[in-house]
């Protein structure tokens, strides 16, 4: 079902936890659908120094969160904004079709945290102009 990479990230998720004085926090998904992701970021000089996540969700949701945080850790805000769900899926070596929405959720969570950071700091981040943090990624 899941690739070895997915299972590895699920078994040993990287960057689990909270950041108390985070510069940006994003939370997406809803409990109804069975997945919620919350991402915390510490950003210094436009660089994501630290990132942590908390996820309520299935194996691929947890693995996607773990992978997404890994992919943006140490990156600049501008680079992080460009993270796509596709990149997450690829880095995980693929996801089952019915689980692809988990990677979309991860992308949204990252964007959501960056958006929060931008709002708080009155910044305009290229690529977040159209971002709506309250959008639901599930097609019900």
């Amino acid at each position, binding site marked *: 079902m899941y690739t070895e990479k997915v*299972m590895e990230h*699920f*078994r040993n*998720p990287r960057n*689990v936890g909270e950041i108390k004085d985070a510069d940006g926090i994003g*939370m997406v998904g809803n*409990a*109804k*659908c*069975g*997945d*919620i*992701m*919350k991402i915390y970021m510490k950003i210094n000089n436009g660089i994501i120094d630290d990132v942590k996540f*908390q*996820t*309520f*969700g*299935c*194996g691929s*949701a*947890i693995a996607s969160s773990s992978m997404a945080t890994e992919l943006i850790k140490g990156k600049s805000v501008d680079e992080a904004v460009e993270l796509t769900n596709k990149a997450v899926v690829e880095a995980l070596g693929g996801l089952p079709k*019915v689980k692809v929405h988990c990677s979309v959720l991860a992308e949204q969570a990252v964007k959501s945290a960056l958006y929060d950071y931008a709002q708080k700091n009155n910044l305009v981040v290229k690529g977040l102009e159209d971002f709506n943090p309250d959008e639901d990624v*599930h097609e*019900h």
Partner: protein
Amino acid sequence: MGKKVYMDNAATTQTKQEVINEMIKYFNEMYGNPSSIYDLGRTSKRAINKARTSVAKFINADEDEIYFTSGGTESDNWALKGVANANKSKGNHIITSKIEHHAILHTCEYLEKQGYEVTYLDVDENGVVNIEQLKESIKDNTILITIMFANNEIGTIQPIKEIGKIAKEKGILFHTDAVQAVGGLRIDVKDLNIDLLSMSAHKINGPKGIGALYVKKGTKLDNFMHGGAQESKKRAGTESVQNIVGFGKAVEILEENFDEHIEKITKLRDRLIKGIKDNIADIKLNGHPVNRLANNVNFSFNYIEGESLLLYLDMEGISASSGSACTSGSLDPSHVLMAIGLKHEIAHGSLRLTLSDSNTEEEVDYVVQKLVDVVNRLRVISPLKG
């Protein structure tokens, strides 16, 4: 490899060695077609009739009231479509419940498309159907009541005797999906006024892909599988002789030590429930506290999601099941957990452990211990806890 603990016996069971031993000679020794008149054919015919006798005896039916099918799903499809078709002139209304297996619910939906009307009864927070609502739902054109004997997810046992009595008084046919109940409690179709009853072998340590439908003599029922003259011209298709033999043997084994079997499983179940309750906070036991299947344990663990739980348990060698949507590829969690009133996020965090008499106390304790760890780990990751 580490420890292996199988606790998903409501999903399917291991085929018992004695069952396999019985089946094996029907593969390449006694392989005749039961419809053939030569010796090899007659041998097969005798074998399936022996199994028929065992199955009939087990539920206090007569031999000629048992028809073999390809499983519980076919039995359910046949019962519903067959009754609906054959009793069209009498009416087009069917009563069922919101917590039936999909084999019933999706068949009902299909029948609705064909012009039948279906009432889906509510259940209370323990998963028991509302008898008052049942009585009120009965109309002049009601032709069938179909209520499962015991639920596959939460183990709740329905008041079948009461329902059978109501159906009989009103002259309405009564079908019950007893796929989960057959291994868990004694069933007497005559005493319970059951007209049709579905069974499946793979839930009671028999092979997969074989089941039976009990049809009380005189019940108006159209055929579902059309073709050859097998099963007294009621169910066409070359009989799965080896599977039927296995089904018969599984029933015989069950019959032999029934009370012992149930007692043992009940003890394990109660130990498991106690272990979980004593060691994990923020949980809820789903299903009826008393009227539940001997082998069924179903808990919701707040703040966590079922698939993750299953996968972490799998890493510890534990096989279990969940009512979470993520295990089925859909988005909504189990209709059963919704029907008993669980909130979505709670339903997503449910775990079903179903025992067999091969499980041990040691295994139960192992599962509790691992469950404590795994629930803790997932709660640490969860944004909901805190």
